């Protein structure tokens, strides 16, 4: 026992620290190569400005307060849209996973709507909401809805029926059965849905902001394009990449906290 205990310990001490650095080697190397290519004139500045120029543009926008304001607006839209669409998707997933009647009533309709690319609704949404906040929120919510709905439904339907039978034998009420067996069993699948949804969230927001907006990161990029400020355009794209990574990391942290029982999240 003591031998088994002692083996994984040094590994688990070493891994996270190295892990944290290793994942940034490739992005940093790309930026370094890019810088060298720009400075030597291999890549013309009109095509792609040097990372140092992009950083400088970012610094200027940061000082003027424009950058923070636009990031905040985009972040706010993304999270509110995600919350609305995610909770509706979760609610439908729960209802259709637990009740046959509810599934019969709504699933077919939802599957039909799912097959319409939600970005195809942009013209209609602009007609309905103008370029107001609600237009962006609506699109994000719609995009986020389906991955969360589908994965919640799938998670609930695939909970081990033997565990449900066990819960019933041991006298769990419906509420207890849900809290102790069904929901924890569906959680890994729900997290898959959340991570898919986070990707779709940014995608939808970028498209919506570049087409119809008067603030936000996408708007900032489109404005910069009109004035030929290519460094700002590249800056916006990089910020999108960072925000996407941030959202993914946040969901991973949540996953680790709530799924610590899962063999895949132990001793890593």
């Amino acid at each position: 026992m003591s031998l088994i205990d002692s083996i994984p310990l040094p590994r688990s001490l070493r891994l996270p620290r190295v892990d944290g650095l290793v994942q940034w080697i490739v992005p940093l190397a790309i930026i370094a190569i890019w810088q060298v290519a720009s400075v030597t004139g291999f890549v013309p500045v009109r095509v792609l400005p040097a990372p140092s120029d992009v950083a400088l543009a970012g610094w200027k926008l940061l000082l003027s307060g424009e950058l923070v304001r636009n990031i905040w607006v985009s972040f706010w839209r993304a999270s509110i849209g995600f919350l609305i669409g995610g909770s509706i998707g979760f609610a439908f997933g729960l209802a259709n996973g637990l009740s046959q009647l509810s599934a019969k009533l709504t699933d077919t309709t939802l599957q039909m709507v799912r097959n319409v690319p939600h970005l195809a609704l942009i013209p209609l949404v602009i007609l309905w909401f103008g370029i107001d906040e609600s237009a962006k929120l609506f699109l994000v919510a719609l995009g986020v809805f389906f991955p969360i709905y589908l994965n919640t439904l799938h998670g609930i339907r695939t909970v081990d029926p033997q565990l449900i039978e066990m819960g019933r034998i041991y006298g769990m009420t419906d509420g207890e059965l849900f809290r102790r067996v069904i929901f924890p069993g569906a959680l890994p699948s729900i997290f898959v849905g959340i991570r898919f949804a986070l990707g779709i969230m940014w995608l939808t927001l970028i498209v919506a902001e570049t087409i119809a907006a008067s603030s936000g990161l996408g708007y900032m990029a489109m404005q910069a394009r009109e004035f030929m400020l290519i460094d700002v355009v590249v800056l916006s794209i990089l910020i999108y990449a960072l925000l996407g990574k941030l959202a993914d990391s946040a969901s991973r942290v949540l996953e680790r906290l709530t799924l610590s029982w899962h063999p895949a999240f132990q001793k890593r």
Partner: protein
Amino acid sequence: MQTALRTSLSETEFASRASFAPHARVVREERPMQISGLPLSIRGLRKSFGDNEVLRGIDLHIPAGQFVAIVGKSGCGKSTLLRLIAGLDKIDAGSISFGGDVQPEDIRVMFQEPRLLPWARVLANVEVGLGRDRASKDAHARAEKALTEVGLADKRDQWPSVLSGGQKQRVALGRALVSRPRVLAFDEPLGALDALTRISMQRLLERVWRDQGFTAILVTHDVAEAVALADRVLVIEEGRIAHDVTINVARPRQRGSAELAGLEGSILSHLLSADDRT
């Protein structure tokens, strides 16, 4: 306060708790002295799934505290009989009675799979077995006691995924025992374990049965296991009880003794002769 309200039944439980000391156990090596088990009477029991008639009229009386093993070929209906006794499936015809009032906590089942909640620590998994008493104040203490009985007190804060197959099955046994059941039904609980773990689990089953005196019904495909553990072995063929064999061998039983081997051989020949006829 609580002890004052207890019935005579719980007094026997106290006695069996007290007898946990090893020297006290030696005194009652003969038979379980205090019987907290329930008798079981089955009359004309029938069950079919679609056109397939699985049980074709079972009549059976099991006295309180008896250890009964049910053997038979796969598909003979032995697991179905167990599920009906445990109330997991509906009865088509006939009756099962336990001679009096039965609480849901009085009858427990242990399956071939441990069926532990992977997202609950070992102790919380045992607490599930308390049924309606889960919310009571002594739930923790009772679960810990049950875990100690199955020898896993030191694993209380582990996730089930780090336990071995035998340990998981012991947690499942602790969960089944924690509500002090009066009938315990085992559906091939040791079927998935390796040979050595099986033997130590069989000893554990026998020990808790002797300590607590519940009525035990064990479905198994292992005839050696049946004769080693049970007072009585029922052979089921084509949905009926074909043979009812009493195992009159003193406990503790010597595994591999000539007496047990003889009984095992005769039961096996019953099972195999049925095979030849078809």
